[in-house]
């Protein structure tokens, strides 16, 4: 994305030593994915994707299944060879390297713990492959067992531990080699909700403490929002938006991002007067924030995105700006929140999320609907 901003590397970068021959240029740190493309037959799994990950950053690839996020992860780890583009880790291009020569480590969705090895042997595997001396391996395995809170379980076989414990062994086995980049492929997918929440916090703590770079793949937008420093929202092989969680949530740039992250109402709109911020939605002129109207062309079609929690329902007999009214089609109670689906004339529906304690309307009731102008986003 920002590879134009990088200094041109005119010199040979000595890997891992930080020594550069020739001119004195600071070695590039972090991960650069640069115009990477992968095609399978006639379909393009990953389409000209560029993202950069800074050292110590927690980046999430978020998207529905089949959006190319796992393929991208597998290209970085070396299991899939890109058709085009470059991937650099700490300045070194890795596309020509086999997986076992890349300084990345992966946490697999199914954990892939070796069934013929104990917990401790699983943890030691990467260190043994690096031919570290035995006492050093033992010391680091002990420390890792402590870190993942499995002290005393080192001699257990992998089928004598719980799912949550297996998850932590998989994480520890990857962490122990101190990779330049830790890749996590939906690692919490197999855990139940409560354990997943707990592990999210755990992962975040470990990442912060070890100052590691994480690239996390998930289709769970809540997980992505909670854990990430930056999120790359992917769709059909492309990155739709790459930004901090709050930016993704508050200022989605595309209709897809607005809809996929959080829950947004998307209303088809036609730009009426860009200068005064007027658009036409379902035959009504509505005002949008001036900064959102910037760059719009009169007569063009756009989408108006409003978060469901920004939609306000008027008390009976009253109305809220901009004074729309519809029929309550469904009321879905979900404990801390409730969703109300309001239907307008024609096919248009809006979802409003109401907080706890808000009086809920009845099905079939007429209700006034509105929002604050500042909550409107224009997406393409």
């Amino acid at each position, binding site marked *: 994305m920002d590879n134009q901003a990088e200094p041109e590397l005119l010199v040979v970068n000595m890997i891992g030593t930080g020594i550069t021959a020739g001119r004195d240029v600071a070695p590039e740190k972090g991960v650069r994915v640069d115009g990477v493309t992968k095609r399978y037959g006639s379909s393009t799994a990953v389409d000209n994707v560029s993202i950069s990950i800074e050292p110590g950053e927690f980046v999430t690839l978020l998207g529905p299944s089949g959006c190319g996020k796992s393929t991208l992860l597998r290209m970085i*780890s*070396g*299991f899939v060879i890109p058709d085009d583009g470059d991937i650099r880790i700490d300045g070194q291009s890795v596309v020509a390297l*086999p*997986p*076992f020569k890349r300084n*990345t*480590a*992966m946490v*697999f*969705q*199914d954990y*892939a713990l*070796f*069934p*013929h090895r104990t917990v401790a042997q699983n943890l030691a*595997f*990467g260190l043994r*492959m*690096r031919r570290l001396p035995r006492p050093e391996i033992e010391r680091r395995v002990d420390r890792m067992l402590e870190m993942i809170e499995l002290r005393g379980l080192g001699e257990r076989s992998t*089928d004598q531990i719980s799912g949550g414990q297996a998850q932590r062994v998989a994480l520890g*086995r*990857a962490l122990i*080699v101190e990779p330049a980049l830790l890749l996590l492929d939906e690692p919490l997918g197999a855990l139940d909700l409560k354990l997943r929440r707990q592990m999210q916090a755990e992962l975040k703590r470990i990442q912060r403490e070890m100052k590691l770079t994480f690239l996390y793949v998930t289709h769970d937008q809540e997980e992505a929002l909670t854990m990430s420093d930056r999120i790359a929202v992917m769709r059909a092989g492309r990155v739709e938006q790459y930004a901090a969680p709050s930016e993704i949530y508050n200022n989605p740039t595309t209709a897809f991002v607005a809809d996929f992250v959080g829950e947004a109402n998307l209303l088809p709109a036609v730009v009426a007067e860009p200068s005064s911020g007027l658009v036409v939605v379902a035959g009504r002129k509505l005002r949008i924030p001036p900064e959102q109207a910037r760059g719009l062309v009169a007569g063009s079609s756009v989408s108006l995105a409003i978060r469901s929690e920004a939609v306000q329902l008027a008390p009976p007999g009253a109305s809220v700006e901009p004074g729309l009214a519809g029929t309550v089609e469904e009321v879905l109670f979900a404990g801390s929140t409730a969703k109300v689906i309001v239907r307008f004339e024609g096919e248009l529906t809006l979802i409003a999320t109401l907080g706890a304690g808000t009086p809920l309307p009845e099905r079939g009731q007429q209700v006034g609907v509105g929002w604050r102008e500042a909550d409107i986003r224009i997406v393409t």
Partner: protein
Amino acid sequence: MSAGTVKLGRPNPAKGGVALTAYTALIFAFLYLPIAVIILFAFDDKPVPGLPMAGLTLDWFGKAFSDPDLMASLFVSIKLALSSAVLATAIAMPAAMVLAWREVRLRTLVMCLLLAPIVVPQIVIGLGLVLLFRLVPDLIGSPAIIIAHTTLTACYATMILYSRLLGFRRSYLEAAMDLGASDLRVFFEIILPLAAPALLAVMLLAFTDAFGEYIVAWFVAGFTETLPIVIWGSMRGVLSPAINAISSVIIVVSLVLSALSQIWIIRQSRSSS
């Protein structure tokens, strides 16, 4: 419980049990009677065995184990069968890995062709091998028998290993590679230990098959005498009960071996799944 409750679980063993038991007994009799007769007559003290048995004796076992020709051929057979079993497994393993894990064009055709040594009559294979070994007459004898039996057993060894490797989680290999293991180390650290039970089973099967195979071996044996060849040769004269005795030993040993390997494989697959 109401009268309409559906009864789940095992069917009542008392009902229809007699017929089922008889049927099972018949099947096992059909399978094992020829074998049982050999074992039975190994203990008959008449020089020409037959019913009714006059008395019981262990002499024939002594005779068999002190017969130098019989013993020599037994060891030849063990040696050759072991060699071809190891060779067949060594050839089958890489083939199975490629078939299971790599993109193979015309995979179905390749798999069908693999079965040729099983579906082609053994007498035809024997004839073909005779013609082939005319080109290298020095190999006739033990090496030719090993090669022939390797051909016969490697095909189904590949099929068995292939089906085992299909159930193998690819992520094990990827995880090992990801943690820094080269292809060779992945093979020795992950694939080999996890496939060991299947390899052993395949080797055992190939061994038993090669050990007992007569037709193809006879074509290329030259002056080499395997146990089946000696037994067949002795049947043209008077069938000595010593043959029954040695056969009994072989039957018992191979039954025990295959039972043990089966139990081991079942245990292994239970713990790994």
